[in-house]
């Protein structure tokens, strides 16, 4: 059964120095508030997994929380480079990070294997690419039935997966809809999981195209309305495109980034106070 916890407490309990964490959300429902809280608590040496390490991981990497990154696409969608990620890989700032690089199809197969209790996933992928030479986590196997050569990638089983969802009920059953990305697989692949939600309701009503992740496979549910910002939660908020654009300038140099983290993350107590400090209006839905 999921416990309803304050985000601060959930992060303290489940994210430790040296943990392998996955924060998912494919452009939609990205758990930004949880990322901030990890920085606030000063976690170090994380192995951070994410298909698209966009702004949320740029912040974690620049703040020095990450020692290894497993990913498939690292950019600021629709804007350009991810400057803190680049600075870490190109110049070892703030310190060296190890990278394990895949394609989206491979990362998806790895999460599915992890969620399915299998040691590896199988796909037709990576053939002929130079990615194969850069990691031991891409190997060739032959089909036992047809002898066809296929690609195997090891399962991902994070210590903790963190996602954002639209809502949960008081039992901790989680409901999400719209672009679902790889979140359900990432939660089921993990040893524990934290879900931040826009609102907690008495009863979940069905939503077309939505899924429910039952309470008994979730560790903690935390109420953080607008907690995906500048990403969004379909039905609750809009993607804040201007914030993504402004990130380019903030993250471009080390000083302005460090100053931003100091003022808006380390210098704030939680997501509400972060929101006030950067001047975004926190609330969208009525949740009392």
């Amino acid at each position, binding site marked *: 059964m999921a416990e309803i916890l304050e985000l601060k407490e959930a992060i303290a309990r489940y994210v430790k120095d040296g943990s392998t964490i996955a924060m998912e959300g494919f452009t939609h429902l990205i758990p930004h508030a949880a990322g901030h809280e990890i920085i606030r608590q000063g976690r170090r040496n994380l192995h951070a997994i994410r298909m698209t390490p966009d702004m949320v991981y740029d912040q974690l990497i620049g703040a020095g929380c990450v020692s290894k990154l497993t990913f498939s696409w690292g950019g600021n969608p*629709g804007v350009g480079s*991810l400057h803190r990620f680049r600075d870490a890989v190109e110049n070892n700032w703030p310190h060296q990070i190890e990278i394990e690089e895949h394609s989206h199809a491979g990362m*998806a197969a790895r999460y599915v294997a992890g969620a399915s209790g299998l040691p590896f996933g199988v796909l037709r*992928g990576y*053939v002929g690419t*130079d990615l194969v030479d850069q990691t031991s986590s891409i190997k060739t196997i032959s089909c036992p039935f047809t002898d066809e050569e296929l690609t195997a990638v090891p399962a991902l089983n994070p210590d903790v997966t963190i996602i954002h969802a639209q809502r949960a009920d008081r039992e901790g059953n989680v409901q999400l809809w719209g672009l679902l990305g790889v979140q359900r697989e990432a939660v089921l692949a993990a040893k524990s999981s934290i879900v931040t939600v826009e609102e907690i309701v008495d009863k979940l009503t069905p939503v077309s195209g939505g899924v429910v992740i039952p309470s008994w496979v979730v560790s903690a549910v935390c109420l953080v309305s607008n907690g995906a910002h500048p990403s969004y939660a379909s039905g609750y908020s809009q993607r804040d495109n201007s914030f993504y654009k402004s990130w380019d300038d903030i993250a471009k140099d080390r000083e302005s980034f460090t100053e931003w983290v100091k003022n808006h993350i380390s210098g704030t107590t939680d997501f509400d106070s972060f929101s006030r400090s950067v001047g975004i209006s926190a609330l969208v839905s009525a949740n009392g």
Partner: protein
Amino acid sequence: MVNVTPSANTISTDDLMIVNAARVLGTLAAAGKAACFVGIGLPSTAANLARRLYSPEPVLIYESGCIGSKPTRLPLSIGDGELADTSDSVVSVPEIFSYWLQAGRIDVGFLGGAQLDKFGNINSTVIGSYGKPKTRLPGAGGAPEIAATAGQVIVIMRQTKRAFVDRCDFRTSFGFGDGPGHRERLGLRGGGPKLVITDLGVLEPDPETCELVQTQMHRGVTAEQCVENTGWKLRIAKNVFTTDAVSDREINALRELQSAT
């Protein structure tokens, strides 16, 4: 129809690439090859323009899981809510890559990158060496499997000496590899690069050598210009032709689409 002012009628090189890509999609859709895997930027604009210009229209598939999207404005990211809200079906990311792309349901994939070589291989990973990159690029995303599996690949890129190289620093997405027969030897199921649409014209692979050859040039572009802006010894096709000028109908539809965004 919007009233097009003279300045709005000035055709940029982006417009040229978008309109030419939209024409190709229109032709493919008419031939029953309509399922198109698109990314944000020029490919998405071209695909959405093709939906407005041609019937039957292409089916737009985005890697965020949107199948049959019919956005009324141009999406700003592949996760734009507009894409999900206007789709025939929204599926998870594992599904889009396994059931849809890997299973061979995609007719056309659009790709771009930082470097393209003469055999249509693409680099979107690093400039320089992998271990000590001069420039770290975003990486593979969905591209390697699109390049391997889509019925055909259309590349949209600006033609410059820096980007059109003899050999990519890193092979992120496989075109024709080292040349003829390489795709077959690896067992890749998709057709590989079919067209490269640039600001100067169009390149296509020579059926025998697989090397990209300039087969079309936009109005006012010279063969010398194409050669000069290509990092390998570019061949110009004997029967190279000039792309049709952008029509009023095309530019009006494009401007209408852009102004709705």
